[in-house]
């Protein structure tokens, strides 16, 4: 069995009096979609931000390829091959797809000029590889795209740069049925490239459909882990609500 490419081990994160994470652990494996589920306030967001370098943990550690690392900020995480797709997508609506994909990492000519034709070419190639079809010409600002297309651009951008892990925060929350199906297909294609996908969602049927592993967070700690086929919606709900656990609660609180 492969080793986890990204893991958080017994992570504690406190904000004032609020203990958002109480010895939470999490592991993501290359070529697999790991879903992170839990109720509101279970610590999903905080754990995600620890994994993507936004927060540094008070206790515990984050490991990449088994080596403990200290992620100083999101750019540090990016430099180590961990990309995050935020819920608000963080696209610049007036730039075209290539402009967004290469934002902050522009290909340059003569040091200061950008090489837009080459960026556009590489974006088109990457989109084709990922099966992101964009009929609209590559010059159109992404503001003209539909919600699903924007989501696809954001995910494809992460996929182009991620060498190890992509963290996706509720990637289908705002999408219609067909758009959701497209995005899930895209997630699977990225996984099949050997990238570890961390998939945060409230939609349990969707999680069961796409995830190879499911980790359940409750009150700031992991309470259950499932492989594909081990869980159904009822069991997930039981784990989320505290009626089921298959992992020892590491802290009595």
């Amino acid at each position, binding site marked *: 069995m492969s080793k986890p490419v990204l893991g958080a081990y017994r992570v504690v994160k406190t904000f004032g009096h609020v203990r958002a994470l109480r010895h939470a652990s999490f592991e993501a494996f290359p070529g697999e979609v790991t879903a992170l589920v839990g109720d509101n306030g279970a610590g999903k967001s905080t754990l995600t931000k620890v994994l993507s370098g936004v927060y540094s943990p008070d206790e515990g550690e984050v490991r990449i390829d088994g080596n403990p690392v200290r992620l100083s900020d*999101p*750019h540090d995480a*990016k430099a180590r091959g961990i990309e995050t797709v*935020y819920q*608000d*997508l*963080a*696209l*610049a*609506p*007036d*730039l075209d797809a290539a*402009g*967004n994909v290469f*934002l*902050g*990492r*522009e290909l*340059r000519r003569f040091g*200061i*000029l*950008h090489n837009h034709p080459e960026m556009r070419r590489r974006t088109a190639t990457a989109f084709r590889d990922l*099966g*992101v*079809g*964009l*009929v*609209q010409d590559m010059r159109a*600002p992404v*503001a*003209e*795209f*539909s*919600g*699903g*297309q*924007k989501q*696809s651009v954001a995910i494809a951008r992460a996929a182009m740069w991620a060498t190890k892990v992509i963290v996706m925060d509720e990637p289908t929350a705002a999408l219609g049925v*067909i*758009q959701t*199906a*497209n995005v899930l297909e895209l997630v699977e294609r990225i996984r099949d490239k050997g990238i570890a996908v961390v998939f945060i969602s409230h939609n349990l049927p969707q999680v069961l459909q796409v995830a190879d592993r499911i980790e359940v967070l409750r009150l700031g700690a992991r309470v259950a882990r499932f492989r594909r086929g081990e869980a159904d919606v009822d069991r997930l709900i039981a784990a989320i609500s505290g009626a089921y656990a298959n992992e020892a609660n590491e802290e009595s609180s």
Partner: protein
Amino acid sequence: MTQTKPTADTESQEPVTPSVPFVRALLRNPTMVTFAVLLAIIAAFSILAPDTFTQRSNFTQLAQNVAILTVVSVGTTFVIITAGVDLSIPSGIVLGEVFAVHALKLIGTGGDTTAADVTADQTKAWYILVALAGALLAGLIIGTINGLVVAYLKVPPLLATLGTLGAGLGAALILQNGVNTATYALDPLGHGSWIAAVPNLIPIALVVVVAGFILLHMAVFGRHTFAIGSNPEAARRAGINVERHLLKVYIIGGVSAGFAGFLSVAYFSTTSIGGHSTDNLQAITAVALGGTSLFGGVGSIIGTLIGVWIPAVLKNGFVITGVQPYWQDVAVGLVLIVAVWFDQLRRRTRNRG
């Protein structure tokens, strides 16, 4: 091409902009609208006053008249694309003038109301460079203050630059004791023509336009400027230092105003501490006419160039055809409203996705 499988392709075929290609193209590119307006105005006056309006000398005169406004408008384009605004342009220009003559005074070559000034043929190239350095320093100071206050203190640009507008003009009056200084040291630049009888201000403004075009449309710097105006949070998450970039943009605005002040003192052979008071509004008008969005993220240098010419051509045409030139203000005001309305329409249409 047929689509059988429901991929991302099929959903994109929903029309997201109006289906009439012409309207769609117009909404996509507001610069084309203003360009058409400019061509229509030129065509109308060419018919109404074929002998005078279309003369080469008339266009040369026009180009010279708009040169200074063109320079500041290029800088303002950058500022407005970041969804900011720079009202302090007049203080940048006037302080540029004042610093230029004070720099001349420092090296003892006139620029003083009492001391004997050099004449045009006594001046030397390095006098001009000293005055230029002074003017650019003034612009740098104003721009840096604007940038620091807007980017780091998070004061809304409208008020931050309103503050430096008043403060800068006051400082200029203090430095000048309220009176203007004449100097002829910059005459070879302001009144000469190095290239084929074309007044110097025209090629100088052209160089600024080309530099602005390269920086905005071809350089990574410009790309980041658009991104910040479009979505500062996206720019920040992409690793762009948004604050530092905004500081640079306001410095560009300030330095372009300082440089305009240098050109102004060279052209008019005097400071004009009471003048330029509407240059900020003229520049903003030009930029907005040119299709640059006041909400940020969209704009072009070419559009600004067109936007500078529309009011100038109107005024010139009205004078030549004997219409009261004040109609220019009325016409420009109306065109401006239409241009900004188009911008709004374009945003509303495309943001449906």
